[in-house]
Protein backbone atom coordinates (compact mmCIF):
# COMPACT_ATOMS: atom_id res chain seq x y z
CA UNK A 1 0.00 0.00 0.00
CA UNK A 2 2.85 2.37 0.82
CA UNK A 3 4.41 1.81 -2.60
CA UNK A 4 1.04 2.48 -4.23
CA UNK A 5 0.84 5.76 -2.31
CA UNK A 6 4.32 6.76 -3.44
CA UNK A 7 3.70 5.76 -7.05
CA UNK A 8 0.32 7.53 -7.17
CA UNK A 9 2.01 10.66 -5.80
CA UNK A 10 4.91 10.45 -8.24
CA UNK A 11 2.69 9.78 -11.27
CA UNK A 12 0.30 12.56 -10.35
CA UNK A 13 3.16 15.04 -9.89
CA UNK A 14 4.97 13.81 -13.01
CA UNK A 15 1.89 14.25 -15.18
CA UNK A 16 0.84 17.53 -13.53
CA UNK A 17 3.89 19.45 -14.66
CA UNK A 18 4.59 18.53 -18.31
CA UNK A 19 0.93 18.12 -19.24
CA UNK A 20 -0.17 21.49 -17.90
CA UNK A 21 -2.83 22.35 -20.39
CA UNK A 22 -4.90 25.45 -20.67
CA UNK A 23 -3.96 27.81 -17.88
CA UNK A 24 -6.93 29.59 -16.36
CA UNK A 25 -5.46 31.28 -13.29
CA UNK A 26 -1.67 30.94 -13.66
CA UNK A 27 -0.09 29.27 -10.66
CA UNK A 28 -3.45 28.38 -9.17
CA UNK A 29 -5.35 26.32 -11.70
CA UNK A 30 -5.43 25.08 -15.27
CA UNK A 31 -7.32 22.42 -17.22
CA UNK A 32 -4.89 19.61 -16.56
CA UNK A 33 -5.19 16.08 -17.92
CA UNK A 34 -3.54 14.92 -14.68
CA UNK A 35 -6.73 15.85 -12.86
CA UNK A 36 -8.25 12.58 -14.02
CA UNK A 37 -5.78 10.55 -11.96
CA UNK A 38 -7.02 11.19 -8.41
CA UNK A 39 -10.54 10.13 -9.42
CA UNK A 40 -9.62 6.94 -11.24
CA UNK A 41 -6.78 6.10 -8.84
CA UNK A 42 -9.31 6.35 -6.03
CA UNK A 43 -11.35 3.58 -7.66
CA UNK A 44 -8.24 1.47 -8.20
CA UNK A 45 -6.23 2.08 -5.07
CA UNK A 46 -8.63 3.50 -2.44
CA UNK A 47 -6.81 5.13 0.51
CA UNK A 48 -3.44 5.05 -1.29
CA UNK A 49 -4.95 7.32 -3.94
CA UNK A 50 -6.10 9.82 -1.33
CA UNK A 51 -2.68 10.10 0.33
CA UNK A 52 -0.90 9.87 -3.03
CA UNK A 53 -2.95 12.69 -4.55
CA UNK A 54 -2.23 14.96 -1.59
CA UNK A 55 1.48 14.18 -1.66
CA UNK A 56 1.61 14.39 -5.46
CA UNK A 57 0.12 17.87 -5.43
CA UNK A 58 2.61 18.91 -2.74
CA UNK A 59 5.48 17.61 -4.87
CA UNK A 60 4.04 19.47 -7.85
CA UNK A 61 4.16 22.65 -5.74
CA UNK A 62 7.72 21.97 -4.55
CA UNK A 63 9.08 21.26 -8.04
CA UNK A 64 6.80 23.78 -9.72
CA UNK A 65 7.96 26.58 -7.40
CA UNK A 66 4.53 27.37 -5.96
CA UNK A 67 5.19 25.93 -2.50
CA UNK A 68 3.63 28.13 0.19
CA UNK A 69 0.85 28.28 2.79
CA UNK A 70 -1.72 27.47 0.11
CA UNK A 71 0.08 24.13 -0.40
CA UNK A 72 -1.38 22.99 2.92
CA UNK A 73 -4.91 23.47 1.61
CA UNK A 74 -3.79 22.02 -1.73
CA UNK A 75 -2.69 18.88 0.09
CA UNK A 76 -6.01 18.49 1.94
CA UNK A 77 -8.09 19.35 -1.13
CA UNK A 78 -6.25 16.85 -3.29
CA UNK A 79 -6.43 14.25 -0.52
CA UNK A 80 -10.22 14.45 -0.81
CA UNK A 81 -9.97 14.49 -4.63
CA UNK A 82 -8.51 11.00 -4.32
CA UNK A 83 -10.71 10.00 -1.37
CA UNK A 84 -14.24 10.55 -2.63
CA UNK A 85 -14.27 8.05 -5.50
CA UNK A 86 -13.91 4.79 -3.59
CA UNK A 87 -16.21 6.00 -0.81
CA UNK A 88 -19.02 6.96 -3.19
CA UNK A 89 -18.85 4.21 -5.82
CA UNK A 90 -21.68 1.75 -5.20
CA UNK A 91 -23.09 3.80 -2.32
CA UNK A 92 -25.22 6.24 -4.29
CA UNK A 93 -28.47 4.24 -4.17
CA UNK A 94 -30.45 4.72 -7.39
CA UNK A 95 -27.54 6.62 -8.94
CA UNK A 96 -25.25 3.63 -8.53
CA UNK A 97 -24.76 1.05 -11.26
CA UNK A 98 -24.09 -1.76 -8.79
CA UNK A 99 -21.09 -2.85 -10.83
CA UNK A 100 -17.33 -2.40 -10.78
CA UNK A 101 -16.20 0.59 -12.88
CA UNK A 102 -14.93 -1.32 -15.90
CA UNK A 103 -17.39 0.25 -18.40
CA UNK A 104 -17.99 -3.13 -20.01
CA UNK A 105 -21.66 -3.59 -19.19
CA UNK A 106 -24.50 -1.32 -18.10
CA UNK A 107 -22.38 1.48 -19.52
CA UNK A 108 -24.97 4.25 -19.23
CA UNK A 109 -25.51 3.69 -15.50
CA UNK A 110 -21.78 3.39 -14.91
CA UNK A 111 -21.18 6.62 -16.78
CA UNK A 112 -23.86 8.41 -14.72
CA UNK A 113 -22.35 7.13 -11.47
CA UNK A 114 -18.85 8.06 -12.59
CA UNK A 115 -19.93 11.60 -13.52
CA UNK A 116 -21.56 12.08 -10.10
CA UNK A 117 -18.40 10.84 -8.39
CA UNK A 118 -16.20 13.10 -10.55
CA UNK A 119 -18.42 16.13 -9.89
CA UNK A 120 -18.44 15.59 -6.13
CA UNK A 121 -14.67 15.00 -6.07
CA UNK A 122 -14.08 18.16 -8.11
CA UNK A 123 -16.45 20.21 -5.94
CA UNK A 124 -14.98 19.11 -2.62
CA UNK A 125 -11.43 19.80 -3.84
CA UNK A 126 -12.47 23.20 -5.14
CA UNK A 127 -14.28 24.10 -1.92
CA UNK A 128 -11.32 23.24 0.31
CA UNK A 129 -8.67 24.94 -1.85
CA UNK A 130 -10.81 28.01 -2.54
CA UNK A 131 -11.65 28.29 1.17
CA UNK A 132 -7.94 28.16 2.02
CA UNK A 133 -6.99 30.70 -0.67
CA UNK A 134 -9.79 33.00 0.53
CA UNK A 135 -8.68 32.64 4.17
CA UNK A 136 -5.12 33.50 3.18
CA UNK A 137 -6.34 36.45 1.11
CA UNK A 138 -4.83 35.11 -2.12
CA UNK A 139 -7.79 34.67 -4.47
CA UNK A 140 -11.50 35.23 -3.67
CA UNK A 141 -13.57 32.06 -3.17
CA UNK A 142 -16.02 32.77 -6.03
CA UNK A 143 -13.18 32.98 -8.57
CA UNK A 144 -11.24 29.90 -7.50
CA UNK A 145 -14.20 27.77 -6.34
CA UNK A 146 -15.98 27.94 -9.68
CA UNK A 147 -12.82 27.56 -11.74
CA UNK A 148 -11.42 24.51 -9.96
CA UNK A 149 -14.79 22.73 -9.89
CA UNK A 150 -15.29 23.17 -13.63
CA UNK A 151 -11.81 22.30 -14.82
CA UNK A 152 -11.25 19.36 -12.45
CA UNK A 153 -14.61 17.97 -13.46
CA UNK A 154 -14.02 18.43 -17.20
CA UNK A 155 -10.67 16.62 -17.15
CA UNK A 156 -11.98 13.76 -14.99
CA UNK A 157 -15.26 13.43 -16.94
CA UNK A 158 -13.67 13.32 -20.39
CA UNK A 159 -10.60 11.21 -19.68
CA UNK A 160 -11.87 8.95 -16.88
CA UNK A 161 -14.28 6.57 -18.66
CA UNK A 162 -11.93 5.61 -21.52
CA UNK A 163 -8.99 5.24 -19.14
CA UNK A 164 -11.03 3.02 -16.82
CA UNK A 165 -12.30 0.96 -19.76
CA UNK A 166 -8.75 0.36 -21.00
CA UNK A 167 -6.88 -0.13 -17.73
CA UNK A 168 -9.32 -1.59 -15.16
CA UNK A 169 -9.01 -5.23 -16.34
CA UNK A 170 -5.19 -5.03 -16.45
CA UNK A 171 -4.83 -3.56 -12.98
CA UNK A 172 -7.33 -6.08 -11.64
CA UNK A 173 -5.41 -8.90 -13.25
CA UNK A 174 -2.21 -7.65 -11.62
CA UNK A 175 -3.91 -7.91 -8.23
CA UNK A 176 -3.37 -4.25 -7.40
CA UNK A 177 -6.97 -3.19 -6.68
CA UNK A 178 -7.18 -1.94 -3.10
CA UNK A 179 -9.46 -4.72 -1.81
CA UNK A 180 -6.65 -7.16 -2.70
CA UNK A 181 -3.83 -5.04 -1.34
CA UNK A 182 -5.46 -4.05 1.97
CA UNK A 183 -5.67 -6.51 4.84
CA UNK A 184 -9.19 -7.73 5.57
CA UNK A 185 -9.35 -5.83 8.86
CA UNK A 186 -8.39 -2.59 7.07
CA UNK A 187 -11.50 -2.81 4.88
CA UNK A 188 -14.14 -1.01 6.93
CA UNK A 189 -17.19 -3.05 7.78
CA UNK A 190 -19.92 -0.40 7.63
CA UNK A 191 -23.64 -1.05 7.35
CA UNK A 192 -25.18 -0.34 3.96
CA UNK A 193 -27.54 2.40 5.21
CA UNK A 194 -24.72 4.29 6.95
CA UNK A 195 -22.53 4.02 3.84
CA UNK A 196 -25.28 5.54 1.70
CA UNK A 197 -26.07 8.33 4.15
CA UNK A 198 -22.38 9.23 4.41
CA UNK A 199 -21.94 9.14 0.62
CA UNK A 200 -24.95 11.36 -0.02
CA UNK A 201 -23.87 13.60 2.86
CA UNK A 202 -20.44 14.13 1.33
CA UNK A 203 -22.02 14.83 -2.06
CA UNK A 204 -24.55 17.34 -0.69
CA UNK A 205 -22.03 19.16 1.53
CA UNK A 206 -19.55 19.47 -1.36
CA UNK A 207 -22.07 20.86 -3.84
CA UNK A 208 -23.82 23.18 -1.34
CA UNK A 209 -20.46 24.47 -0.04
CA UNK A 210 -19.32 25.43 -3.55
CA UNK A 211 -22.66 26.95 -4.56
CA UNK A 212 -23.06 29.04 -1.39
CA UNK A 213 -19.40 30.02 -1.42
CA UNK A 214 -19.51 31.13 -5.05
CA UNK A 215 -22.96 32.77 -5.28
CA UNK A 216 -23.97 33.87 -1.77
CA UNK A 217 -21.14 34.30 0.75
CA UNK A 218 -18.98 37.40 0.16
CA UNK A 219 -15.23 36.69 -0.12
CA UNK A 220 -13.15 37.18 3.03
CA UNK A 221 -16.34 37.61 5.12
CA UNK A 222 -17.08 35.90 8.43
CA UNK A 223 -19.88 34.09 6.60
CA UNK A 224 -17.42 32.68 4.05
CA UNK A 225 -14.99 31.59 6.79
CA UNK A 226 -17.73 30.03 8.92
CA UNK A 227 -19.20 28.27 5.87
CA UNK A 228 -15.81 26.75 5.16
CA UNK A 229 -15.24 25.70 8.76
CA UNK A 230 -18.68 24.06 8.99
CA UNK A 231 -18.33 22.44 5.56
CA UNK A 232 -14.90 21.07 6.40
CA UNK A 233 -15.95 19.65 9.77
CA UNK A 234 -18.99 18.03 8.15
CA UNK A 235 -16.88 16.49 5.38
CA UNK A 236 -14.37 15.18 7.92
CA UNK A 237 -17.12 13.70 10.08
CA UNK A 238 -18.84 12.07 7.12
CA UNK A 239 -15.50 10.75 5.87
CA UNK A 240 -14.88 9.09 9.23
CA UNK A 241 -18.27 7.33 9.33
CA UNK A 242 -18.32 6.42 5.62
CA UNK A 243 -17.59 3.02 4.15
CA UNK A 244 -16.71 1.52 0.78
CA UNK A 245 -18.59 -0.99 -1.36
CA UNK A 246 -16.21 -1.61 -4.23
CA UNK A 247 -14.68 -4.60 -2.48
CA UNK A 248 -18.12 -6.28 -2.58
CA UNK A 249 -18.60 -5.36 -6.22
CA UNK A 250 -15.28 -6.85 -7.31
CA UNK A 251 -16.00 -10.00 -5.35
CA UNK A 252 -13.95 -9.73 -2.13
Amino acid at each position, binding site marked *: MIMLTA*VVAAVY*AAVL*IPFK*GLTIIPGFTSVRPANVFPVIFSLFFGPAAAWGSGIGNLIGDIFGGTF*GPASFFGFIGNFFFGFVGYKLWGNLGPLSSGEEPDFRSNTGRQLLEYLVVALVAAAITAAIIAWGADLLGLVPF*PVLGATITVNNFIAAAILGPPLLYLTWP*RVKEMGLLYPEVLRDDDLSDVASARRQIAAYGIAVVAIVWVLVGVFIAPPQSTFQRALGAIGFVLVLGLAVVSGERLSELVGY
Partner: protein
Amino acid sequence: MSRSPSLYVDRNTVLHRLTARSKLVLLLGVFTTAYVFGHPAAVFVPLAASFIALIYAGGWRNFKRLAYIIAALFLVGFVVWPAFTASGGPTLLHTPVVTVTRREFLFALGRSERIAAFIVGGLLFVTTTSNEEIVAGLRSLGLPYAFCFAVGTALRLFPTFLGATGTVQQAQAARGHEVSGGNPISRLRGYIPLLIPVFMTAIRNVQTQAMALEARGFDTRRDRTFYNKRSFAPADWAVVVISLVLIVGSVWLSLAGFGGI
Protein backbone atom coordinates in the same frame (compact mmCIF):
# COMPACT_ATOMS: atom_id res chain seq x y z
CA MET B 1 14.51 15.11 -19.85
CA SER B 2 18.15 15.25 -18.84
CA ARG B 3 17.73 18.39 -16.74
CA SER B 4 16.88 17.76 -13.08
CA PRO B 5 13.45 19.10 -12.19
CA SER B 6 14.64 19.96 -8.66
CA LEU B 7 14.89 23.62 -7.67
CA TYR B 8 17.50 22.87 -5.00
CA VAL B 9 20.74 24.82 -5.45
CA ASP B 10 23.74 23.13 -3.82
CA ARG B 11 25.67 25.89 -2.06
CA ASN B 12 27.25 26.40 1.34
CA THR B 13 25.45 29.50 2.61
CA VAL B 14 24.14 30.15 6.13
CA LEU B 15 20.64 29.32 4.91
CA HIS B 16 21.75 26.02 3.38
CA ARG B 17 23.41 24.97 6.63
CA LEU B 18 20.25 25.44 8.68
CA THR B 19 18.13 22.35 9.39
CA ALA B 20 14.84 21.97 7.54
CA ARG B 21 12.98 22.44 10.83
CA SER B 22 14.44 25.86 11.57
CA LYS B 23 13.93 26.89 7.95
CA LEU B 24 10.27 25.91 8.24
CA VAL B 25 9.94 28.10 11.35
CA LEU B 26 11.63 30.96 9.48
CA LEU B 27 9.25 30.40 6.58
CA LEU B 28 6.34 30.56 9.01
CA GLY B 29 7.69 33.90 10.23
CA VAL B 30 7.87 35.28 6.69
CA PHE B 31 4.40 33.98 5.83
CA THR B 32 2.89 35.40 9.04
CA THR B 33 4.42 38.81 8.42
CA ALA B 34 3.13 38.85 4.86
CA TYR B 35 -0.30 37.64 6.03
CA VAL B 36 -1.11 39.92 8.97
CA PHE B 37 -0.50 43.22 7.16
CA GLY B 38 -2.65 44.60 4.38
CA HIS B 39 -0.86 47.79 3.38
CA PRO B 40 1.51 47.28 0.43
CA ALA B 41 4.32 49.17 2.19
CA ALA B 42 4.19 46.73 5.12
CA VAL B 43 3.85 43.60 2.96
CA PHE B 44 6.77 44.77 0.85
CA VAL B 45 9.17 44.18 3.79
CA PRO B 46 8.86 40.33 3.93
CA LEU B 47 8.71 40.22 0.13
CA ALA B 48 11.92 42.20 -0.26
CA ALA B 49 13.66 40.30 2.55
CA SER B 50 12.74 36.92 0.99
CA PHE B 51 13.89 38.11 -2.42
CA ILE B 52 17.26 39.33 -1.13
CA ALA B 53 17.74 36.05 0.78
CA LEU B 54 16.83 34.10 -2.37
CA ILE B 55 19.44 35.91 -4.42
CA TYR B 56 22.01 35.42 -1.64
CA ALA B 57 21.24 31.69 -1.58
CA GLY B 58 21.84 31.39 -5.32
CA GLY B 59 18.21 31.24 -6.37
CA TRP B 60 18.28 33.85 -9.13
CA ARG B 61 18.01 31.15 -11.83
CA ASN B 62 15.00 29.63 -10.03
CA PHE B 63 13.43 33.06 -9.76
CA LYS B 64 13.94 33.68 -13.49
CA ARG B 65 12.47 30.24 -14.24
CA LEU B 66 9.32 31.12 -12.28
CA ALA B 67 9.18 34.85 -12.93
CA TYR B 68 6.26 34.48 -15.34
CA ILE B 69 4.20 32.59 -12.73
CA ILE B 70 4.97 35.19 -10.07
CA ALA B 71 4.15 38.01 -12.48
CA ALA B 72 0.94 36.29 -13.58
CA LEU B 73 -0.17 35.69 -9.97
CA PHE B 74 0.67 39.30 -9.12
CA LEU B 75 -1.44 40.53 -12.04
CA VAL B 76 -4.34 38.18 -11.25
CA GLY B 77 -4.48 39.44 -7.67
CA PHE B 78 -4.22 43.01 -8.84
CA VAL B 79 -7.06 42.65 -11.34
CA VAL B 80 -9.40 40.45 -9.28
CA TRP B 81 -9.31 41.98 -5.78
CA PRO B 82 -10.71 45.47 -6.58
CA ALA B 83 -13.95 43.76 -7.62
CA PHE B 84 -14.27 42.13 -4.20
CA THR B 85 -13.41 44.95 -1.82
CA ALA B 86 -15.12 48.12 -0.65
CA SER B 87 -14.19 51.34 -2.41
CA GLY B 88 -12.89 54.38 -0.55
CA GLY B 89 -10.74 57.48 -0.92
CA PRO B 90 -10.12 59.47 -4.08
CA THR B 91 -10.70 57.91 -7.52
CA LEU B 92 -7.43 56.95 -9.18
CA LEU B 93 -8.80 55.53 -12.42
CA HIS B 94 -12.13 56.16 -14.05
CA THR B 95 -13.20 54.55 -17.32
CA PRO B 96 -16.63 53.55 -18.66
CA VAL B 97 -15.82 49.96 -17.69
CA VAL B 98 -14.01 50.22 -14.36
CA THR B 99 -13.41 52.70 -11.57
CA VAL B 100 -10.57 52.18 -9.11
CA THR B 101 -10.35 54.11 -5.85
CA ARG B 102 -7.23 54.60 -3.73
CA ARG B 103 -8.40 52.02 -1.19
CA GLU B 104 -9.10 49.40 -3.85
CA PHE B 105 -5.70 50.04 -5.41
CA LEU B 106 -3.82 49.70 -2.11
CA PHE B 107 -5.83 46.62 -1.12
CA ALA B 108 -5.16 44.87 -4.45
CA LEU B 109 -1.49 45.82 -4.44
CA GLY B 110 -1.11 44.52 -0.87
CA ARG B 111 -2.76 41.22 -1.81
CA SER B 112 -0.60 40.83 -4.91
CA GLU B 113 2.52 41.49 -2.86
CA ARG B 114 1.32 38.90 -0.34
CA ILE B 115 0.99 36.29 -3.08
CA ALA B 116 4.48 37.18 -4.35
CA ALA B 117 5.92 37.04 -0.81
CA PHE B 118 4.43 33.57 -0.28
CA ILE B 119 5.84 32.29 -3.56
CA VAL B 120 9.30 33.85 -3.11
CA GLY B 121 9.42 32.60 0.52
CA GLY B 122 8.50 29.08 -0.60
CA LEU B 123 11.04 29.29 -3.41
CA LEU B 124 13.72 30.27 -0.88
CA PHE B 125 12.90 27.15 1.12
CA VAL B 126 13.07 24.73 -1.83
CA THR B 127 16.20 26.47 -3.17
CA THR B 128 18.08 25.88 0.09
CA THR B 129 16.63 22.50 1.15
CA SER B 130 17.31 19.20 -0.62
CA ASN B 131 14.62 16.53 -0.99
CA GLU B 132 16.33 14.36 1.63
CA GLU B 133 16.38 17.26 4.11
CA ILE B 134 12.70 17.96 3.47
CA VAL B 135 11.82 14.34 4.28
CA ALA B 136 14.08 14.26 7.36
CA GLY B 137 12.52 17.57 8.43
CA LEU B 138 9.01 16.15 8.12
CA ARG B 139 10.05 13.17 10.24
CA SER B 140 11.66 15.39 12.87
CA LEU B 141 8.40 17.32 13.10
CA GLY B 142 6.79 14.08 14.29
CA LEU B 143 4.98 12.98 11.13
CA PRO B 144 4.57 9.19 10.85
CA TYR B 145 7.45 7.36 9.18
CA ALA B 146 5.12 5.69 6.66
CA PHE B 147 4.02 9.11 5.43
CA CYS B 148 7.59 10.40 5.28
CA PHE B 149 8.71 7.28 3.43
CA ALA B 150 5.92 7.73 0.88
CA VAL B 151 6.93 11.38 0.37
CA GLY B 152 10.61 10.44 0.04
CA THR B 153 9.92 7.60 -2.38
CA ALA B 154 7.59 9.78 -4.44
CA LEU B 155 10.26 12.49 -4.58
CA ARG B 156 12.76 9.92 -5.85
CA LEU B 157 10.35 8.34 -8.34
CA PHE B 158 9.05 11.64 -9.62
CA PRO B 159 12.04 12.46 -11.90
CA THR B 160 11.90 8.89 -13.29
CA PHE B 161 8.22 9.22 -14.18
CA LEU B 162 8.79 12.74 -15.47
CA GLY B 163 11.41 11.25 -17.82
CA ALA B 164 9.02 8.45 -18.80
CA THR B 165 6.30 11.03 -19.49
CA GLY B 166 8.65 12.97 -21.74
CA THR B 167 9.68 9.78 -23.56
CA VAL B 168 6.04 8.78 -24.13
CA GLN B 169 5.24 12.28 -25.40
CA GLN B 170 8.13 12.13 -27.87
CA ALA B 171 7.33 8.55 -28.94
CA GLN B 172 3.69 9.39 -29.63
CA ALA B 173 4.65 12.62 -31.39
CA ALA B 174 7.01 10.57 -33.62
CA ARG B 175 3.99 8.45 -34.57
CA GLY B 176 2.16 11.62 -35.62
CA HIS B 177 0.10 12.06 -32.47
CA GLU B 178 -0.85 15.71 -31.98
CA VAL B 179 -2.42 17.14 -28.83
CA SER B 180 -2.08 20.85 -29.37
CA GLY B 181 -4.80 21.43 -31.97
CA GLY B 182 -8.58 21.60 -31.78
CA ASN B 183 -10.97 22.71 -29.07
CA PRO B 184 -10.26 22.09 -25.37
CA ILE B 185 -12.32 18.85 -25.28
CA SER B 186 -10.61 17.31 -28.30
CA ARG B 187 -7.27 18.41 -26.89
CA LEU B 188 -8.07 16.67 -23.62
CA ARG B 189 -9.12 13.51 -25.49
CA GLY B 190 -5.80 13.66 -27.30
CA TYR B 191 -4.04 13.01 -24.00
CA ILE B 192 -5.50 9.49 -23.64
CA PRO B 193 -2.79 7.78 -25.77
CA LEU B 194 -0.20 9.61 -23.68
CA LEU B 195 -1.63 8.86 -20.25
CA ILE B 196 -2.14 5.11 -20.65
CA PRO B 197 1.56 4.20 -21.25
CA VAL B 198 2.61 6.50 -18.37
CA PHE B 199 0.04 4.90 -16.09
CA MET B 200 0.90 1.31 -17.00
CA THR B 201 4.65 1.99 -16.67
CA ALA B 202 4.03 3.30 -13.18
CA ILE B 203 1.85 0.34 -12.22
CA ARG B 204 4.54 -2.14 -13.29
CA ASN B 205 6.92 -0.12 -11.15
CA VAL B 206 4.71 -0.69 -8.10
CA GLN B 207 5.14 -4.44 -8.34
CA THR B 208 8.92 -4.28 -8.77
CA GLN B 209 9.42 -1.77 -5.97
CA ALA B 210 7.10 -3.60 -3.58
CA MET B 211 9.02 -6.84 -4.16
CA ALA B 212 12.32 -5.02 -3.58
CA LEU B 213 11.03 -3.62 -0.29
CA GLU B 214 9.74 -6.99 0.87
CA ALA B 215 13.03 -8.65 -0.06
CA ARG B 216 14.82 -6.19 2.24
CA GLY B 217 12.43 -6.86 5.13
CA PHE B 218 10.94 -3.37 5.00
CA ASP B 219 8.74 -2.49 7.98
CA THR B 220 7.29 1.00 8.58
CA ARG B 221 6.46 0.33 12.24
CA ARG B 222 10.04 -0.09 13.49
CA ASP B 223 12.30 2.75 14.62
CA ARG B 224 14.34 4.23 11.81
CA THR B 225 17.71 5.91 11.62
CA PHE B 226 18.73 8.59 9.14
CA TYR B 227 22.16 8.78 7.57
CA ASN B 228 22.16 12.58 7.39
CA LYS B 229 20.31 13.34 10.62
CA ARG B 230 21.30 16.83 11.76
CA SER B 231 20.96 18.20 15.26
CA PHE B 232 19.94 21.75 16.09
CA ALA B 233 22.99 24.04 15.99
CA PRO B 234 23.18 27.47 17.70
CA ALA B 235 22.39 29.09 14.33
CA ASP B 236 19.14 27.07 14.17
CA TRP B 237 18.12 28.22 17.65
CA ALA B 238 18.93 31.81 16.71
CA VAL B 239 16.76 31.55 13.60
CA VAL B 240 13.90 30.05 15.60
CA VAL B 241 14.10 32.87 18.16
CA ILE B 242 14.23 35.53 15.42
CA SER B 243 11.27 33.89 13.66
CA LEU B 244 9.22 33.78 16.86
CA VAL B 245 9.99 37.45 17.53
CA LEU B 246 8.95 38.17 13.93
CA ILE B 247 5.67 36.30 14.34
CA VAL B 248 4.76 37.79 17.73
CA GLY B 249 5.94 41.26 16.73
CA SER B 250 4.04 41.36 13.45
CA VAL B 251 0.84 40.07 15.03
CA TRP B 252 1.17 42.63 17.85
CA LEU B 253 1.82 45.48 15.38
CA SER B 254 -1.13 44.38 13.28
CA LEU B 255 -3.45 44.28 16.31
CA ALA B 256 -2.17 47.75 17.26
CA GLY B 257 -3.42 49.01 13.90
CA PHE B 258 -0.11 49.19 12.04
CA GLY B 259 0.06 48.09 8.42
CA GLY B 260 -3.67 48.30 7.70
CA ILE B 261 -5.38 50.19 4.88
